[in-house]
C-alpha cells in the first residue's frame, strides 16, 4: 500500500515541482554557506598562524564575510520559496480532492453500517479528509526537502573532502550515511511497535476521558467515580510505560547522532595526523577539514523528524485515496438528456438494494404520479421511504423494474439535467456558512431582489428576516446553527420556490420541528405545491388531505394505498398509526 501511496502522493506534488526544486537549491546553498563560514574561518586562522602578509589573508577575510551574510539571506529566500510552494500545493490538493469527490456525492459519502440501511452522516468522514489535507500541505517542507538537501550536501562534501585525500571522503561518507539513513531507520524499526501502542493507548485514554466528562452525571449518580478514576489511572500508567520506552529510543537516537557527528571529527583527526606528519596533507587544511565536516551535520538533525512525519502523511494520503477511489454510484449516459414530454413520474416493479450482498430495501414498488398531482409516502421509520426518494433522485441506480419521468427512462437523464427538473426539501437542509441572501441565491444566482422577496414572503420567511439586525445579509453560522429548525426549513422552501422546478420532492420536511412550527411549515408547503408534481415523504400523519394518493410502506413494500379517507375506512396499518397519534389527546379529554 505505502509504496503506491507514496508514488501517488509525489504525483500530487508534481505541479509545484519547480518551486520545490528552487527551494531545495536555496536550502542547499544555505547549508553550504554555513559550512563555508566555518571552513573559511578555520582556513583564515590556520593561514594567519603562518604569519603571511595581510594581503594574503584578505581573500579569506572576504570569504568569511561573504558566507556570514549569504547564509542569512539564502535562509530567508529559501523560506519564502518553500512556503509559496506549500500554499500552492495546498490549493492544488483542495481542488484535486473536490474534483475527485464531487462525482461521488452523495451516495459514496454516506457510510452505511453493515447489515442495516441506516445512513450515517458524512460529516465525520469529510472532517477527517479536510484535516488530512492540512497534514499533507507540509509534505514538502517537512518531508521532501530535508532528504534532498541532505543528499546534495552529502555528495558535495564527499567531493570536497576527496580533494584532500580519499580517506577523508571515505570516513565522511560512512559516518554521514550511518547517521542520515542508518540511525533514522534503526530508530524507526525500534519505535514502530511502541509508537503504534502509544497511539492506541492515547485513543483509549481519550475515549475514557470523553466518557468521564460527558457521562459525569451518570457516573456520579451511580457512584462510579472511583472505578472510573482507577480505569483512567491504569491507562495512564500504561501510557507512561510506553512513553518512557519511546523516550529511551528517541534519546538513544539523539545520542547516536551527536556521537556520530563528533566521531566523524575524531576519525578525520585520526587520519589527518599521520597524513600531515608524512606530508601527504598540508597542515594548513586540517582545521578546515574538521570544521567543514562538523558544519555539514546541521542537515542531519531534521532527518529523523521527517522520517517520522512520513508515516503520518502516508496514512493521511491513504485515507484520502481510499475515499476518492470509490466508484461513483451512477454513471451519466453518454448521449444528451432527452426532453421530458410532461412531468409525470411512473414507477413499475421497482426493486432496489444497496449492494449485491444485501437484502432488498425496496420490493416491487408500483405507482404513478400524474403531472401536478401529489403522492404521499408514509410508514414507520426504516420502511424505505427515503431510499425511494434517493432512487428517484438518482443518488443510486435501481437494479430491477422501471422508473419513467416525462416518458423517458430515468437513467437516460444526466444528473445535472435531472436536477434542473426537481426541487428537493430535505429533512435536514444544508445551509452554507454565509448570509441568508447567499444561501437563497444558490437556487437561482441571477435572482433579483424582488424575486427573492416574493419567494421569502411565500415561505413566510420575509418578516423574520427583516427583524434580523442585518436583514438578508445576516450570517447563518456553521450549518445554519444560528437559525432555528423551522427557520432553516423555511429557507429550504424559499430556495425551492426560487428554483421553480416542475417536480417537488419533500423528504420529511417537518421531522425535527415542534408541533406549532410543523403546522405553519405544512401550510407554506401548500403554497409551494401549487401545480407541481409532488412526492411527500412523512411519518407524521398531519394535513394528509394534501395528497391525492397515499402509499403506506412497510419493510420495503407497499402494504396499503388510497386516499386519506379510504385508508381510514380500511382500518389497517394507516388507521392504526392514525389512532396512535390521536389516542393521547382522547385520553386527556375524558
Amino acid at each position: 500500500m505505502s509504496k503506491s501511496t507514496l508514488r501517488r502522493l509525489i504525483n500530487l506534488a508534481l505541479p509545484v515541482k519547480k518551486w520545490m526544486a528552487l527551494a531545495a537549491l536555496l536550502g542547499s546553498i544555505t547549508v553550504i554557506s554555513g559550512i563555508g563560514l566555518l571552513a573559511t574561518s578555520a582556513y583564515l586562522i590556520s593561514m594567519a598562524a603562518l604569519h603571511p602578509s595581510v594581503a594574503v589573508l584578505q581573500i579569506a577575510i572576504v570569504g568569511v564575510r561573504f558566507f556570514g551574510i549569504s547564509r542569512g539571506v539564502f535562509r530567508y529566500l529559501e523560506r519564502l520559496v518553500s512556503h509559496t510552494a506549500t500554499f500552492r500545493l495546498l490549493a492544488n490538493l483542495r481542488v484535486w480532492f473536490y474534483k475527485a469527490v464531487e462525482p461521488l456525492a452523495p451516495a459514496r459519502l454516506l457510510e452505511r453500517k453493515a447489515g442495516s440501511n441506516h445512513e450515517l452522516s458524512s460529516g465525520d468522514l469529510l472532517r477527517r479528509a479536510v484535516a488530512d489535507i492540512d497534514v499533507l500541505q507540509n509534505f514538502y517542507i517537512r518531508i521532501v526537502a530535508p532528504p534532498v538537501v541532505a543528499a546534495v550536501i552529502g555528495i558535495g562534501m564527499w567531493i570536497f573532502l576527496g580533494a584532500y585525500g580519499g580517506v577523508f571522503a571515505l570516513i565522511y561518507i560512512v559516518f554521514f550515511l550511518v547517521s542520515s539513513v542508518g540511525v533514522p531507520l534503526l530508530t524507526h524499526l525500534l519505535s514502530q511497535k511502541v509508537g503504534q501502542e502509544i497511539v492506541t493507548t492515547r485513543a483509549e485514554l481519550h475515549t475514557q476521558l470523553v466518557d468521564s466528562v460527558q457521562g459525569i452525571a451518570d457516573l456520579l449518580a451511580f457512584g462510579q467515580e472511583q472505578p472510573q478514576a482507577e480505569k483512567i489511572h491504569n491507562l495512564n500508567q500504561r501510557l507512561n510505560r510506553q512513553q518512557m520506552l519511546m523516550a529511551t529510543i528517541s534519546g538513544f537516537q539523539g545520542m547516536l547522532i551527536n556521537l556520530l557527528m563528533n566521531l566523524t571529527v575524531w576519525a578525520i583527526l585520526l587520519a589527518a595526523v599521520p597524513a600531515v606528519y608524512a606530508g601527504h596533507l598540508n597542515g594548513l587544511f586540517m582545521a578546515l577539514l574538521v570544521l567543514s565536516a562538523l558544519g555539514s551535520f546541521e542537515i542531519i538533525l531534521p532527518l529523523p523528524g521527517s522520517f517520522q512525519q512520513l508515516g503520518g502523511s502516508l496514512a493521511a494520503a491513504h485515507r484520502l485515496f481510499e475515499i476518492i477511489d470509490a466508484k461513483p454510484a451512477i454513471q451519466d449516459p453518454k448521449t444528451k438528456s432527452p426532453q421530458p414530454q410532461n412531468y409525470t413520474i411512473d414507477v413499475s416493479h421497482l426493486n432496489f438494494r444497496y449492494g449485491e450482498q444485501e437484502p432488498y430495501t425496496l420490493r416491487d414498488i408500483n405507482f404513478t404520479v400524474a403531472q401536478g398531482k401529489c403522492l404521499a409516502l408514509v410508514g414507520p421509520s426504516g420502511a424505505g421511504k427515503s431510499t425511494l426518494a434517493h432512487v428517484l433522485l438518482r443518488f443510486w441506480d435501481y437494479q430491477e423494474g422501471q422508473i419513467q419521468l416525462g416518458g423517458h427512462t430515468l437513467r437516460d437523464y444526466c444528473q445535472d439535467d435531472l436536477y434542473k427538473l426537481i426541487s428537493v426539501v430535505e429533512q435536514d437542509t444544508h445551509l452554507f456558512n454565509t448570509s441568508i441572501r447567499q444561501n437563497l441565491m444558490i437556487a437561482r444566482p441571477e435572482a433579483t431582489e424582488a424575486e427573492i422577496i416574493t419567494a421569502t414572503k411565500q415561505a413566510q420567511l420575509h418578516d423574520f428576516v427583516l427583524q434580523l439586525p442585518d436583514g438578508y445579509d445576516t450570517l447563518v453560522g456553521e450549518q445554519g446553527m444560528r437559525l432555528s429548525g423551522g427557520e432553516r426549513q423555511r429557507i429550504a422552501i424559499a430556495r425551492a420556490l426560487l428554483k421553480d422546478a416542475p417536480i417537488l420532492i419533500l423528504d420529511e420536511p417537518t421531522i425535527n420541528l415542534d408541533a406549532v412550527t410543523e403546522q405553519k411549515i405544512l401550510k407554506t408547503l401548500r403554497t409551494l405545491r401549487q401545480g407541481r408534481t409532488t412526492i411527500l415523504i412523512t411519518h407524521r400523519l398531519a394535513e394528509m388531505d394534501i395528497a391525492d394518493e397515499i402509499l403506506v410502506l412497510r419493510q420495503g413494500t407497499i402494504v396499503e394505498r388510497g386516499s386519506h379517507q379510504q385508508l381510514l375506512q380500511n382500518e389497517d396499518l394507516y388507521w392504526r398509526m392514525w389512532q396512535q397519534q390521536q389516542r393521547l389527546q382522547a385520553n386527556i379529554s375524558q
Partner: protein
Amino acid sequence: MNINKRLLLYVKAMRIYVVLVGLFALITALCIIFQNSYIAQIINKAFLAHQSLPQLLPALYILLGIILVRAIVIWGNELATNIVSTRVKTDLRQRLFAHLFKLGPQFLKGEQSGEIVNTTADGVEALDAYFIQYFPQVCATVIIPTVILIYVFSIDTLSGIVLLITWPVLPFFMILIGKQANAMTEQRWRLLSQLSSHFLDVLQGLTTLKLFGRNHIQEETIRTISTRYGDTTMKVLRVAFLSSLVMEMGATISNAIIAVEIGLRLLYGDIPFEQAFFILLLTPEFYLPLRSLGAQFHASIESAASAERIFDLLETPTSEVANDQNIQVPQTVQEAIEFCDVHYTYTDAGEKQRAEALRGISFKLAPGQKVAIVGASGAGKSTIAHLLLRFLEPTAGAITIDSQPIQSIPAPAWRKLVTWQPQQPYVFNTTVAENIRMGQSDASIDEVIIAAQQANIHDVITQLPQGYETEIGERGALLSGGQVQRLSLARAFLKNAPILVLDEATSTLDTESEQQVLQALERLTPDRIALTIAHRLHTIISADHILVIQDGRIVDQGTHQTLLMKSPVYQELVKAYEEEAIA
C-alpha cells in the same frame, strides 16, 4: 511566563528536576570546552609542532572519552526529563479528575465539556514540550554560554569582550521576534482554520450544490480562496522571516567578527594559534543554545497555555460541604424526604451573572408516593432533580431525610439512596454488561440479565452480535433512543435504591418504544419514592401528587383532577403537552 511559579507550587519534584537539568547543562558545557580544547590542541600539535600519531594518541583517546561522556549526558537528560514529565502528567490527571468529580455535571454542561476533554487529554500531554524540550533548553541557554564566556575570558579577554557585547543583543532580538512570530503563527492558524472550515462547508453541502446545479463553479471558488489565503499568509510570514533573518545575521556576523579579530591578532603574533583556534571553535557553541531556544518558543507557549488551563480548572472552587465523619448514613427512607424553603441561584463564573432558579421550594416525598413536577422549560424542574442528586447544593434552605439534613451525609454515600433516570442516559464505551453494571459494580451476570429482563431490554441484547459482551461503541450508536432508556432502567433495577428521580424521555421515542419503557417503569416504581419531571401526559395523570412550578416557585399542587379545575397555569401546561402529544 508565570507557569514556573505555579508549577513549583503543584509539582513536588520540581526542585529536584531543576537541579538535575541544570547539572546536565553544566556537564554538557564542560564537555564542550574540553572537547574543543583537545581538538585545538591536537591540530596545533600536528600542524605547527609536526607531531606524529603515536605522540598524539593519548590526546585522541581522551577526546574520544569526552565525546562518549557528552553522548551519554544527552541520553541521560532525555530519560530524566521524561521521567519527570510522565510523573507530572499522571499526577495532574489524577488531580484533575478528583476535582472534576467534585465540580459535578453542572460545571461540565454544554460547550465546556469538549474544552475540558481537550485539557485533560491533549492539554496534559502538551506539558511534555515544557518539561522535555523547553525548560532544559532554557537551562542550557543560561548555563552553557555563561560557562563558555567565563572560560574565554580566562584565556583571552578581548574575545571575551566581543562575545559579551554580542550576546545580550541576541536575546533582545529573540524576545522581540518571539513575540512577533507568535502573534503571526496564531494569525496564520486562524486563517488556516477559517479556510478549512469553508472547505468543509462546501464538501458537506455537496449534495445541496448538486441539486441546485452549483457544483461546477465551486472548483474555481476553492482555488481562489486557497490562493488568497496563501497570499495573505505570505504577507504575514515575510515579516516573520525578515526578523529571523536579522537574528541569524546577528549570530553569523558575530561569528565572522571573532574569526577576523583573532585572525588578525594571530597574524601579528598577539595570540597563539591553539588559543585562537579554540576560541573559534567555541564561538558557534556559544550562540547555538540561544538559536535552538527560538525553535522551542511555540511549543512552550502552547504548554504554558495548557498549564494555565489545567491550573485554572484545579483552582475552580467546588461547592463541597465539610461532613461530620461520625454521621449515621441512612440506608433507606423511613418517613420522608423534605424540601424546606429551598433556594438555588446559579452563578455563571465567566460573566458573574446570577440567575435565581429556585425561590423557596417546600414539599414532601413519602415512600410509595409518585410525585410529578410540571412546568414550562426554565421553570426550575431540573434544578430540583439536581439538588436531590447533590449535583448542586442549595444556596439557602435545607433538604432533609427523616429530618436529618442531607448535607451532613457525604455526597457519594447519599447518592447510594438515589437512582436517576436521565433524559439522555450516557452509554459508556464498553460492553453492554459493564454498562448495566454501573448500577452495581459487583453484580453477577445473572443479576445483570434479571435486571435487563425487568427493563424489557434482554431480548434486544441477546440479538446483538456478542450478546451481553458486545461493545456498544461510541455513544451507544448500536442502540436506539428507546433501547438506551431501557438500558439505563436496567441500571436502575440493579441499583435498587429507595428514591427514584425520573427525567422523562421527550417525544423522541416512538409510541412502541415508549410503551416498553413505561411497562418497565411500572415494575420499578412500587414502594419507592418516585419524583418525575413530567414531559408526557401519562405521568401527570397517574401521579399521586403534582407540583406546578413557575419561575422557581410552586404555584399550585394537587392531583390532576383538582388542578385541572382550579389552576390556570396547569390548564395552560396541559394544553401544551396535549399539542406535543398530537405531533
